[in-house]
């Protein structure tokens, strides 16, 4: 091996290691802090002489962990299946059927693709108040379905545009109606597209912070991210408990990611580059 080749390899490994360190160090710092003596203020990164594993048990009850997870799960179940189903139907129609005013409808949906949630939060608050939904999980679920819809339709339409038109023709020749064609041919072929979309929507709902912060006061009716925000507000000064609680709250998404990391990354890339 040449000297410059070796130098390149050393630089490459060095830079990659530095970036990896950058990615994990904040989490490591949280972890060692979470094990320090309760109520103390440890150094940023230092292994405690006697790790207080009990801090996690204290944080479990302080963060009202069970209620938070139940609530987050309910919100995800309310948002993801409904949004994916509606987006799949709309995406299919806009790509494969001749929808009257289809171009205009799709154009209007595209506007929502770049719309920041903050731009809508003010009117949403007053609308949901007049519907009497403030403080309920529906106040998070219903707007979230609408807010995620443009991306879902965009994603599914891109998938259905790529399917072979001959398939539809063949089904028509066989006398299948629109629903049968969709159900028997297109939907099974779209499995990877809609399951990837479900993963992305799961993360978007699970990690949603702004809607719960504004629309639901009770942390136990919020998403995990919303509950974490409230937990920080309550225990912001007790850094040990805050770190323990935060780690507990992010652990499930971390574990799910590590188990499914292959599918995760694939999901992300599939539609992103259409």
């Amino acid at each position, binding site marked *: 091996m040449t000297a410059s080749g070796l130098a390149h390899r050393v630089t490459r490994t060095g*830079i*990659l290691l530095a*970036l*990896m360190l*950058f*990615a994990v160090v*904040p989490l490591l*710092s*949280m972890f060692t802090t979470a094990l320090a003596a309760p109520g103390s203020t440890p*150094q*940023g*990164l230092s292994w405690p002489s006697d790790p207080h594993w009990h801090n996690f048990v204290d944080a479990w009850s302080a963060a009202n962990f069970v209620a938070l997870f139940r609530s987050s799960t309910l919100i995800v179940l309310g948002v993801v299946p409904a949004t994916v189903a*509606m987006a799949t*139907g709309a995406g*299919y*129609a806009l790509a*494969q*059927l*001749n*929808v*009257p005013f*289809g171009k205009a409808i799709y154009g*209007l*949906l595209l506007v929502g693709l770049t*719309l*920041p949630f*903050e*731009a*809508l*939060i*003010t*009117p949403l*608050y*007053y*609308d949901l108040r007049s519907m009497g939904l403030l403080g309920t999980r529906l106040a998070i679920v219903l707007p979230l379905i*609408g*807010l995620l819809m443009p991306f879902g339709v965009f994603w599914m339409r891109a998938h259905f545009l790529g399917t072979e038109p001959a398939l*539809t023709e063949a089904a*028509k020749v*066989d006398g299948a109606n*629109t629903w049968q064609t969709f159900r028997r041919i297109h939907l099974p072929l779209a499995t990877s597209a809609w399951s990837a979309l479900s993963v992305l929507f799961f*993360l978007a709902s699970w*990690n949603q*912070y702004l809607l719960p912060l*504004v629309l639901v006061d009770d942390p136990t009716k919020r998403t995990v*991210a919303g509950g*974490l*925000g409230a937990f*920080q507000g309550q225990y912001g000064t007790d*850094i040990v408990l805050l770190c323990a609680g*935060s780690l507990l*709250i*992010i652990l499930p*998404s*971390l574990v799910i990611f*590590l188990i499914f*990391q292959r599918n995760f990354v694939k999901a*992300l890339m599939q539609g*992103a*580059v259409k």
Partner: protein
Amino acid sequence: MIAASRPRGDAVPSVRRRSWSALLWVAPAFATYGVFVLFPMLQSVQYSFYDWDGIGPATPAGLDNWKAIFTQPELLQSVVNAFVLVIFYTVLPVGLGLVAASFIRELKPGAFSTTARVLLFVPQVLPLVAAGIAWTWMYSSDGLVNQVLRAVGLDRYTRAWLGDFTFALPAVGVIGVWVMLGFCTVLLLAGIGKIDPALYEAARLDGAGTVREFFAVTLPGLRRELVVCTTFTIIAALASFDVVQIATQGGPGYQTMVPGVQIYRLTFLQQHVGQASALAVFLAVLVLLVIWPIQRLGRQR
């Protein structure tokens, strides 16, 4: 097979026939979108021309709320800060992501390359709230950043970073780098995987070094991935909320104030609903105006 049993000459309906029943397929999606996105957006536009505290009667305010965006320092500053964050959310992660992705591509597939990919991506999966909390601790007086500075004898540079008038905004920006780096790396890495290996061989036969190879083959081949990365991260920067709200709430002063946090504060803490709405519509239009040319660029051949 069903067709075979049908009488010949029975017209097979054209696939592209305009059918009103197709609207039914689109209706549920469009209805929820209309009620919870389009309608509130129009309401925002309407509110922006009124003075309203959210409870009492609204009084027409003409263009006052709109003029204030450009004349009130704290509103204008929030917009400027959002553009500063683009450097951290977009420029740095895309740049570093390109470096990381082309390095990982050179590695043999194995434990190290997988670990690098997975670790870099972890911050993207966590809620932004967690990112805010982790980094608030990193930047605090006893946090890791100051601990490292003290360890290498740079005690005089230690400070509470998020409370510092000069460094608060860059400090918040670094959180953005942390979150976005993995997303950009993984997306760009996937793009590199799709580049024809023959192009790399040709470059090597022409005697191109690693750097020439990067500019001649890798970069042009990543056009679409670069557009997606840039679009996604610019929206995240201009519309940032979670990280800033958790880490600084816009302070100290208005040093880290961004439009998202300002809208939240104007509506829910100060009850200036009209002003918040004007800023909200302004932000939405601003994002569109910035994203539009980038998308055009991506579609050109």
